[in-house]
């Protein structure tokens, strides 16, 4: 069944997986695929990519989804959650049991888990909370205490509220319209929970503005925070260079790193949230970093030095 030959060090595999179920979960869909090689290698926080539209599809880019759960049945299954909000995800939602899909994984850096039995707050926005439940199971195996804080715009877009209530010590829900839990956004409740739960570590997954706010609050309370980012990806395996964001390395240097292979999990304070979507002037290789020959020629700062880009032509000319 395996298409790709995995390297001995257990990297990702590309397989033709058989769809077990596609079911509606609140405002979302959950698809379960039989993919033993992926299930066996999976660690919480990692993701899978799927080709959509069939063999002669006009949609060339694989869709990436963080893994919600893996189970040992049928040799190993992988479940992920998605919103059917585009032609690719609608195609996925129309799959039925026994259909075959091209699925690759597990991809990306997983959530690091603490060595000691500490108290963890897991924060999720929308269906971004999907990867938090396998993480929660992993943390509880390590005798950590887990509190959940989940939010969305409206009640049916909160993913996994029931599971959170069942498996977490506490589960706090926020919705912007007040249809479920407290009215507001997750960060409105975070301070209070941190105080009451005596949180030692924070994990978060959801939209970028939420991750930015969660990181700011975590820093205020001086609590380590791990975030799983959602960036637009074309390949998911590290070759296309489209999913980059500015991240400060341990050496203090900002680099444009790929969220697919260097992430999707980062320490929150490493991400330069205010600069996401830009190339910070001090980033490694930014236009300020001109080659010596060009500096010597006195062309530094010339408009044309804006530089070539991947495709083809000078932009703006």
């Amino acid at each position, binding site marked *: 069944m395996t298409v790709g030959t995995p390297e001995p060090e257990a990297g990702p595999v590309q397989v033709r997986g058989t769809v077990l179920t596609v079911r509606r979960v609140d405002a979302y869909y959950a698809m379960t695929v039989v993919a033993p090689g992926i299930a066996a290698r999976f660690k919480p926080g990692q993701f899978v990519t799927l080709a959509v539209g069939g063999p002669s599809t006009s949609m060339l880019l694989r869709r990436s989804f963080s893994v919600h759960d893996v189970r040992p049945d049928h040799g190993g299954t992988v479940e992920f959650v998605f919103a059917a909000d585009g032609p690719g995800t609608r195609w996925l939602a129309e799959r039925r049991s026994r259909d075959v899909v091209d699925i690759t994984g597990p991809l990306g850096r997983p959530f690091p888990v603490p060595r000691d039995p500490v108290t963890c707050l897991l924060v999720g926005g929308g269906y971004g909370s999907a990867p938090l439940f396998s993480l929660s199971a992993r943390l509880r195996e390590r005798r950590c205490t887990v509190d959940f804080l989940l939010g969305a715009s409206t009640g049916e877009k909160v993913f996994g509220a029931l599971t959170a209530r069942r498996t977490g010590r506490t589960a706090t829900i926020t919705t912007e319209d007040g249809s479920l839990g407290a009215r507001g956004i997750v960060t409105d409740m975070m301070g209070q929970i941190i105080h009451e739960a005596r949180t030692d570590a924070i994990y978060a997954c959801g939209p970028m503005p939420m991750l930015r706010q969660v990181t700011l609050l975590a820093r205020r309370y001086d609590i380590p925070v791990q975030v799983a980012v959602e960036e637009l990806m074309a390949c998911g395996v590290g070759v296309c260079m489209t999913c980059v964001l500015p991240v400060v390395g341990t050496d203090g240097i900002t680099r444009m790193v790929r969220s697919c292979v260097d992430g999707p999990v980062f320490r929150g304070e490493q991400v330069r949230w205010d600069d996401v979507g830009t190339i910070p002037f001090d980033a490694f290789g930014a236009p300020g970093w*001109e*080659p010596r020959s060009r500096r010597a020629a006195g062309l530094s700062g010339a408009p044309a030095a804006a530089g070539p880009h991947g495709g083809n032509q000078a932009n703006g000319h």
Partner: protein
Amino acid sequence: MATDLRARLGQAELPNPILTASGCAGSGRELAQFFDVSKIGAVVTKSVMLAARAGRPTPRMAETPSGMLNSIGLQGPGIDAFLQRDLPWLLSRGARAVVSIAGGTVDEYAELATRLSDSAGVTAIEVNISCPNVEDRGQVFACDAGAAAAVVDAVRGRARYDIPVFAKLSPDVTDIVAIARACVAAGADGLSLINTLLGMTIDMDTMRPVLAGVTGGLSGPAIRPVAVRCIWQVREALPDVPIIGMGGVRTGQDALELILAGATLVSVGTAIFHDPSACMRIVRELEEELARRGVERLPDVVGLAHEPSSNSRRRLTGNVS
């Protein structure tokens, strides 16, 4: 009967004519998780520049019908890191390395050619001339025969004699044959056809350009007919010049189409994003396509579409769909 897929690139003999396309395979390391990179013809690296480069802001990519737009901005670590880390890795895996180079000035290209010639193991240099010339108001080298020739001349002059130099041409020109002739006259050993086409798309929610870089390079099956046309025209004008064909190849049949138009080798690009194992699948499919047509050796079909049809019917026995 199995078809002999072996192909030549300069002095090197390749096991088959399927390469990766520059910018779609990094330096091979990531794809090695999915297939043995020594089993394809060669890995064409992402364009390397003299200095490290952060590239363009995001969004850098947009999906389009049967294609995609990209505006990466040649993000990369620069030639030093490439020679220290990426090239030795490729060689250690037994892969053949075709190194794509990019620069903002003729001197930068020349310097890159020197650096590559000083290191062992470079099978060929592919010169990405679809870059703005910082010394000429950002005019793209590939769009001007004189500028394209100046780069090729400088690279050929500095590259070691046994490293073939291929110029990668842009289809965004009025007369691609004129650019091809200029590059060959300047010493190019071969041509790579084609680079992406310049495109653009607008987000219907924000009603603004999707890409941060506004415009981007269009690739994928959507551009394959343009690639076939460019390869055909250049092969017609310069029948003895080796061509690496690329542009929307997704299957073995697509690769054969470019070969029939005149490509001696074929690079696979955007299809890799769709299917990380695409290169090896295409090698298998190409072999099947050729065997099905009773072709014994790959060179027998290179440029075959240019021959009168009675002749090709004689050669193409078997079930032609």
